[in-house]
């Protein structure tokens, strides 16, 4: 009799081990922090953590899907800023309505994703090079568009997106949680989204299996770009202005979160929930170091070490399993 069918679904997930480990670490860490610092467990602090990571986590949902399919996008920070600036200009210079301005901002993001996707899937250009080029190009485009200045004085109808509350919780947190839950559900259950695991696992075999590899790849680049656009709207609305420098370096923080969460740069592995836990872990860590009065410069050092440890643990596990 074959096993497998009898094992509960929940622990069959590709990165089950990583997700459980992260949850355990988070619980232990938070308990210790709760004892050390009376502020840590207050709702105000928890909300600050969630709000702080909402931008990274939102992009991470798209990034992990892209990484699973064997892709990579370094241009998300530029795309984020582009959406903010385009929406801001639409509101202030063109005097368009809030929904129309948001739509135009997201279309700009979609354009970047489409360009990335076409270059990678159709012209077979390396994703790293393609999106590195796009990172620089889009940032340059921004400076031209906004003439190097921030777009200020955004209307209240728009800023409410990033500042409004429902049941005492800020909107960006709802948006992030909604995307994480939907994204995780789709990656586990939807045929279309699961094709990404096959493409990242073995692209040539995926092609022979009748999977439309090019289409899925282009879709994934568009997905991460649009989610970067959503993140851009959240930041812009929160601050009430769109800056041309916002989001620099965010791509590395997002990729770090997904890898801590179990994704692999060589594709085929990872989960949306894992990526969220990775981002949460980084958010909690930064917050804890702040509360403990540790110098802000230490945060990068610690985050870097955590990333390396996570990857080393992965490699050791793989080796033990293959023995």
């Amino acid at each position, binding site marked *: 009799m*074959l*096993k497998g069918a009898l094992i509960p679904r929940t622990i069959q997930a590709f990165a089950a081990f990583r997700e459980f480990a992260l949850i355990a670490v988070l619980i232990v860490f938070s308990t210790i922090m709760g004892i050390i610092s009376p502020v840590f467990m207050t709702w105000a602090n928890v909300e600050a953590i969630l709000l702080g990571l909402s931008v990274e986590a939102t992009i991470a949902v798209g990034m992990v899907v892209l990484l699973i399919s064997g892709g990579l996008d370094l241009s998300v920070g530029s795309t984020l800023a582009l959406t903010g600036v385009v929406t801001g200009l639409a509101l202030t210079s063109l005097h368009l309505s809030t929904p129309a301005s948001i739509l135009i901002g997201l279309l700009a993001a979609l354009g970047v994703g489409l360009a990335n996707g076409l270059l990678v899937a159709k012209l077979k250009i390396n994703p790293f090079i393609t999106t590195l080029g796009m990172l620089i190009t889009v940032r340059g485009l921004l400076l031209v568009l906004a003439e190097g200045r921030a777009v200020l004085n955004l209307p209240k109808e728009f800023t409410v997106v990033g500042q409004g509350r429902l049941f005492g919780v800020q909107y960006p947190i709802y948006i992030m949680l909604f995307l994480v839950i939907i994204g995780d559900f789709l990656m586990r259950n939807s*045929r279309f989204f699961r094709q990404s695991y096959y493409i990242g696992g073995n692209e040539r075999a995926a092609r022979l299996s009748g999977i439309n590899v090019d289409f899925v790849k282009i879709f994934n680049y568009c997905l991460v770009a649009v989610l970067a656009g959503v993140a851009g709207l959240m930041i812009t609305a929160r601050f009430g202005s769109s800056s041309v420098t916002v989001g620099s370096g965010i791509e590395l923080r997002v990729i770090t979160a997904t890898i801590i969460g179990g994704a692999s740069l060589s594709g085929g592995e990872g989960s949306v929930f894992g990526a969220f836990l990775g981002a949460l872990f980084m958010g909690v860590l930064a917050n804890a170091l702040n509360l403990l009065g540790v110098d802000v410069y230490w945060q990068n050092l610690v985050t870097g070490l955590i990333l390396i440890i996570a990857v080393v643990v992965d490699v050791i596990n793989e080796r033990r399993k293959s023995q």
Partner: protein
Amino acid sequence: MNTRIPCLKKDWQTSVNEVLRAEQLSKSFPGVQAVDEVSLTLYEGEVLALVGENGAGKSTLTQILGGAQRQDSGRIIFSGQPVSFNSPEDAMQAGISMVFQELSLVTSLSVAENIFANRQPVGTLNNIRWNDLYQETDQFLGRFELELDPRKLVKNLSMGQQQILEVLKAISTNPKVLILDEPTSSLTEGEISSLFQNMRRLQGEGMSFIYITHKLSEIFQIASRVVVMRDGKYIGDRVVSEVTESELVSMMVGRQIANLYGTASGEPSATEYFRVENLSRKGAFQDVSFGLQRGEILGFAGLVGAGRTEMGRAIFGIDRKDSGRIFLNGAEVKIASPEEAIEKGIVYLTEDRKAEGLFLDMPIRENVIAPSLRDLSSRLDFLNKKEIDRFATNLVTKLSINTPSILKKVLTLSGGNQQKTLVAMWMGTEPKVIVFDEPTRGVDVGARAEIYQKLREIVADGNGIIMISSDLTELVGMCDRILVMHQGRIQGVVNRTDFSEELILSYAAGLNRMEEYQSLP
């Protein structure tokens, strides 16, 4: 059991000098005794064949001899001295070279740089002297009567040429003992015979070979003695001239296999239901036309590069075709992608299961459902997980894939079980026309018999199989008809009643061409 005493007559040997002796070698990995007290002796200038099913311990044994693994117990005596190697480089220094199944070539470098990796001729500033390098390579290749440009990048060579290059690279270090682990798996008949010719020459110069193979017919062509292993143990030692193929097979599997290829349950139905007309792609295949009958296994023979694989891939829509039409059940079908081919019941099983057939890092379950995802999803595109488990379990049972769980990664399976997984994957789509490229490459005898049996069942259900193979014995054993291709064109067709290896080979080599094809350009 066999009553014959292992024969140690020396008259067939070119020399009686012992080169290498293994004494009571053992090696275990967690959970398996891979090699269990195996002893063997290799004499100067002899080719010793080592056979056994996958998992019999041949590869581990030779890895110990070649320095890639360390034995748990036992001794190795080389040239009269006990030796102990820490690495393959160590063994190579001493004079034992090994050619692994997995290719170790750097594909982005030239032929010359691969052969002389780390040993390039250098000038005073340690700079590589390129002209000398190319010249030396040219001379070296000339000795083996191989026409290969030393400057050509390895990635532009065919699989067969790469495999030959791998062997030459090992020979270039001038070893006393050369261990070859399935060197002919992607070679054509012509390439194999040229390899054997060169081996015989080197044998005359005193080089000794340990030769691992799954193709038993090769043993009778090249080896003087054969050692059989099963479950890590030494089973027996025979002089090749005194043993039969079926005797070797029963020693290998530990039971009698009456007929490897099985017998057809009936004749093909004589109703042609699939037809290819004038299929062409410049530089690959020209004007290929043929029909397939229900219940028929149609073989495609030819040398590597004859265009058989390219044609199969074009039918499946993975590669482009310039012109030509395809008919299924009398109606023309347009196939522009694998997706469309699968939908119409036309499938292609690749010759390279590791590189493009399977998802090695994924579980068996995710592999076997891959081409059937659409059928296993609801109208809202959500996967039906209960159905998937049932579907995968069913296929694993049907193909008797030997695994404790459908969640096991395909990577951990033996070659035979991997190939069965590939077959399961495509049988799940319930195909009508199956293009099977090299059905049993790198698959042991036991699993081969099972795969052949499965193919018989598929045609008994009224489907047709197009079987592309470089193993002529396999084609002759399985097919109802064999089409032979040469330089992209069909050269001849041979019916079961007229099967002869000579005739097929003469078509494949382009020595003659059937009249009905001569009218074609």
